[in-house]
């Protein structure tokens, strides 16, 4: 069984609907630690030591956040800047994260058509999150495509939201139980492009 760390970042959690629903769907599951960064560090004073111990104790690290300015909320950048120390996360001595898996769970306002070359946002999600891919690579981690919920600006109907919540839950549980076919997953644009194709039934 894999241990999963979810680094959750939403500066206005009270007002979030999709992220809160996604998070509620997996709250309390065995082997899954949800760590609310804005809740833990309201003044951005990140406890580096604690964060590093937390990463070491888990096998899969998921950054769950809304998509702000084609990137993450500010605290996640601060987290990367401070926690991924030379000699711990990278460098010839730094291999604390090596071999672990990582992915992002993103909610974005625009819809699928806008995140295309020639679309209103001009780039695909995959292109925009390439810094995370590079970071994973530098730290020797296995990068997985992101779990993506698009079009939240229009306000998603309850049925659609529930569908996302359910698929997020399935994906996380499958990752935990080692039922995800990583090679197959890497071929898809999003982790949730076709969940059935990458998850083995228990």
């Amino acid at each position: 069984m894999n241990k999963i760390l979810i680094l959750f970042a939403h500066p206005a959690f009270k007002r979030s609907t999709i992220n809160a629903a996604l998070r509620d769907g997996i709250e309390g599951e065995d082997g899954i630690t949800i760590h609310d960064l804005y809740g833990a560090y309201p003044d951005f004073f990140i406890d580096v030591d604690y964060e590093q111990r937390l990463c070491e104790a888990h096998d899969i690290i998921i950054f769950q956040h809304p998509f702000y300015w084609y990137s993450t909320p500010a605290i996640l950048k601060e987290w990367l800047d401070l926690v991924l120390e030379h000699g711990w996360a990278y460098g010839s001595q730094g291999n604390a994260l090596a071999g672990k898996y990582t992915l992002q769970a993103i909610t974005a306002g625009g819809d699928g058509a806008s995140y295309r070359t020639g679309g209103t946002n001009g780039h695909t999600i995959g292109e925009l999150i390439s810094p995370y891919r590079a970071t994973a690579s530098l730290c020797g981690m296995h990068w997985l495509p992101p779990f993506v919920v698009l079009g939240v600006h229009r306000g998603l109907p309850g049925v659609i939201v529930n569908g996302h919540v359910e698929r997020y839950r399935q994906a996380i549980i499958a990752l935990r139980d080692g039922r995800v076919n990583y090679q197959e997953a890497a071929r898809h644009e999003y982790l949730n492009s076709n969940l059935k194709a990458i998850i083995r039934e228990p």
Partner: protein
Amino acid sequence: MEHFLLQLFIFLIAATIAVPLARTCRLGSVLGYLIAGIVIGPFGLSLIAETEEIMHFTEFGVVMMLFLVGLELKPSLLWQMRTPILGIGGSQVFFSTVLITLIGILFIPWQQALAIGLTLALSSTAIVLQTLREKGLLNTGPGRSIFSVLLFQDLAVIPILAVLPLLAVAGVHGEAHHGAFFDLTALPGYARLLVVLVAIGFIYILGRYISRPLFRRIAATRMREIFVAAALALVIGISLLMIAVGLSPALGAFLAGVVLADSEYRHELESDIEPFKGLLLGIFFISIGASLNFTLIGEQIWLIEGIVLGLVAGKFAVLFLVSVVFKMPKAERWLFGIALCQGGEFAFVLFQFARVNGVLPQPLTETLISAVALSMFIAPLLFLVYERFIGPRISHAALSREHDHIDGHDHSVILAGFGKLGTDLGRFLISAGIKPVILDHNETSVELLRNFGFEVYYGDATRLDLLESAGAAEATLIIICLGEHEPARQLVTLVRKHYPHLKIAVAAEDRRAVYEFMDLGVVTMRRKTFDSALALGQDALQLLGYDRYEAYRLMRLFRKKDEDTLPELYRIFTEDRDSYISMYRQHNHELAELMVKDQQTDMDELDKAWAGGNPHE
């Protein structure tokens, strides 16, 4: 004297035995009192004989209760409630009167039927309010509707008293009992109205302008009994004035309460009057129980039973209809109907009055009074039925939502102490939209702060009754910012013991105070001067040429390290204390321990941040 004491003793003993028993059986205190009354009354152990006198005297409890209710109702809130009071209350009284009168006409002359209709339309303020408060329903949606109706009924008593003599069919049997100092009826109509208006104006001026400097003076003496005396004198004086001008004393007391609801002495007044009210009402209920004439009831069992059933069913039907017409939520209709379908204590007064004025014959009033008393007896039982069988079936969403709403706006936070620290804290909370109930013991600062629009009340926060009337039972949080450690410690102990649900946040004098609060189980506390010290230290670093952000980070790191060492230092503190080291040595030991910790502190952590490094090294 001896006889009086004996009577009092019997009443008190009956109450102390019956009420806790009733509580254990979850029957509510009102029913407990009533049963106690039956037990000690002429049809039980015959321990007391004359109850009428006592009932009249203790009716004053109702006056005090309305004063207290008024204290909780600010004029603005009362204005907001004008529609339910006039609309719901008015239609309840009107339609109940019409229904009862129509039924009555079948048996008796219309004048008598109307007199009975007007009287029986009223419900029991004493029982209903007491029960609602006990069950925590007073501030819910239905609670407010019920209260509106009761308030209208109290107002309606005045015109009813005026109308009743006009309905006389027989000659007047005796002197009409006014209890007035002078006979207002001798005055022409406009003069009477003038006198009444002057009296009400006087209450307003008294509450608004005279009472405050007076109370301030009295508060400054710091003698509690004088304050209690003044509070009692106020209520009794207003009642006398009201009786003198022919108004209901309950109404006058209510008005005085409303006028004083904005005053800083509100909670102090509340906690001073409360015990008297409780005791008087208790004895009032006991005397109702004792006055049940079982011989009469036995003789006319079917008639009385019919009247009681008809009364309860008829009023319930009217109430339910009114609740539908006024679009009250479905979940609230049952409670609204059940709460108000009994006869009230005003009936005792009004029937008596009607008999004396020759409206109703003696035997009829006795039958009716027994029926009303019986209906009051079954009122708490109906509440029980509602709680057990009806309430659980109705979704409580409506009721609890209203609760939340009140919690959010009505004082869910108590701020004890409004000195230097409390002032800034209060300002901050108010800016965040939280309006705490503020308690402070300094009468001059209370006065000043109120001029600036703070809701500050005068009183010693370590007094349990003041905490109670400040709403500790319903509050979520108490913030303690008292100037000294000892009272703060007392207050924490008090709160932990009596309001275990209440969250506590404390401003601690120093490190040692923090340990003591930890002993008491407090989790949230701050040292009063610690954060200022660090902020000033951060300024100092900046003045010495440190980068602003670096100075901030150093301060922040120091604070974190200090927080991290707290459990360890607390352990050392408890060990030292257990080994009875002298205070002086203890203090030095702590300081040394602290310094050692500081020296071990690894501030290099900051140097590593944002340092970067070559991935290939």
